[in-house]
């Protein structure tokens, strides 16, 4: 028997999942823009603004379900977590826009050495994988997979610090490249953090266990 609440939860899940896909697209476009030296700021800004609006819609829907049905147990965990996850997706969008904005504003990547592109690309691959898994796990609730991703988060953090160390030691890098690439790897590190928050929320939804995967 389908409860009245089930329809609302299905709608909320669809809203959050679509939001995740839009956020993933924003991150992917912004990184490609940096790596291919293309101006993606308008497209990514548009997606980022949509995500801001989506967060409000998710909150409104969640509040309406709480007010109407007073959900408990797994229902309550889902609604509570989705509100947090929506905010994390909004942050994906914001950092994606930051990446594309910085790339366009300073155009620093045009002066970067090849190794820097390779480094950012490698780091971006890890982050995009985390983003993808964080979004898909909302539907799959695969707690084993998200727990395994903890290593990726640590890997991204390590790469971020390693990059800063390399920049300090490396001579001959332009100021524009230093500013652009440093901010981009910083934003990637932040996106990975939000992916981890989402994966923690997935574990909480599935098991009720409040974990820290960082």
């Amino acid at each position: 028997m389908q409860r009245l609440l089930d329809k609302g939860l299905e709608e909320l899940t669809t809203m959050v999942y679509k939001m995740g896909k839009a956020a993933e697209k924003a991150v992917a476009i912004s990184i490609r823009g940096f790596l291919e030296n293309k101006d993606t700021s308008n497209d990514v800004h548009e997606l980022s603004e949509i995500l801001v609006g989506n967060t409000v819609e998710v909150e409104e829907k969640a509040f309406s379900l709480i007010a109407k049905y007073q959900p408990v147990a797994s229902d309550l965990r889902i609604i509570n977590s989705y509100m947090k996850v929506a905010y994390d997706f909004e942050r994906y969008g914001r950092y994606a826009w930051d990446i594309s904005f910085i790339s366009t504003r300073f155009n620093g990547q045009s002066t970067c050495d090849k190794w820097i592109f390779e480094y950012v690309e490698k780091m971006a691959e890890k982050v995009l994988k985390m983003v993808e898994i964080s979004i898909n796990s909302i539907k799959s609730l695969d707690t084993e997979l998200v727990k395994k991703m903890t290593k990726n988060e640590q890997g991204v953090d390590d790469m971020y610090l390693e990059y800063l160390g390399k920049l300090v030691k490396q001579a001959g890098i332009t100021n524009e490249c230093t500013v652009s690439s440093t901010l981009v790897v910083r934003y990637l590190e932040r996106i990975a953090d939000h992916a981890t928050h989402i994966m923690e929320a997935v574990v909480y939804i599935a098991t009720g266990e409040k974990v820290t995967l960082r």
Partner: protein
Amino acid sequence: MNASFGKVQVLKGINLNFPENRVTAIMGPSGCGKTTLIRCLNRIHELTPNAKVEGEVILDGVNIYSPQVDPVAIRRRIGMVFQKANPFPTMSIYDNAIAGLKLAGVRNKEMLDSVAERSLRMAFLWDEVKDDLKKSGVNLSGGQQQRLCIARTLAVEPEVILMDEPCSALDPIATAKIEESIVALKKEFTIIIVTHNMQQAARVSDFTAFMYLGQLIEFDKTSEVFENPKSELTEKYITGKFG
């Protein structure tokens, strides 16, 4: 504890510890044995023909089912508020409040006045009835009648108060007042409340027991039961996925 009516066993091996000065809610579907359980806790169950109880109820280290224990005295120490408010119809508000004391032979007017005021205050009713104490208790609203019954229970200074769906016939405002009094009363009493209303259990209780088909399925802090129940049966019941 096991309990039965004739050959029908309604409680099956219940083992439960009610924490002192806390509110414990007992919930479960109709017929799961909630009311029978609390009626066993103050020896009212045995008053029903063919009713039988096996096991122990320990209060302050003493089994209340021991042959040496007087069941009438136990019912004074473990008071009960019923689903339907049942003030004595021929008595005034004042007399209802102190009915238990009068039955126990107390005649001191000053003492009776003091207890009446104290218990009516504790039941959050004093301000509404202080000028009408001589009026009949049955002229009060449903919610006020129920609070009068709570005051009557409090007047004999029990240690434990059992409440059997005390708000099921009340409107939301009257329910809120009873709930307010339940939360305030736990400072002095241990309260066990049977309720069908899960939101009420979540609002007023510190611990929650979930029963199904005469068995205790889960007992935990209320916040745990409502956020992360351990039993799948509890999860299904509280989320309305039962049946």
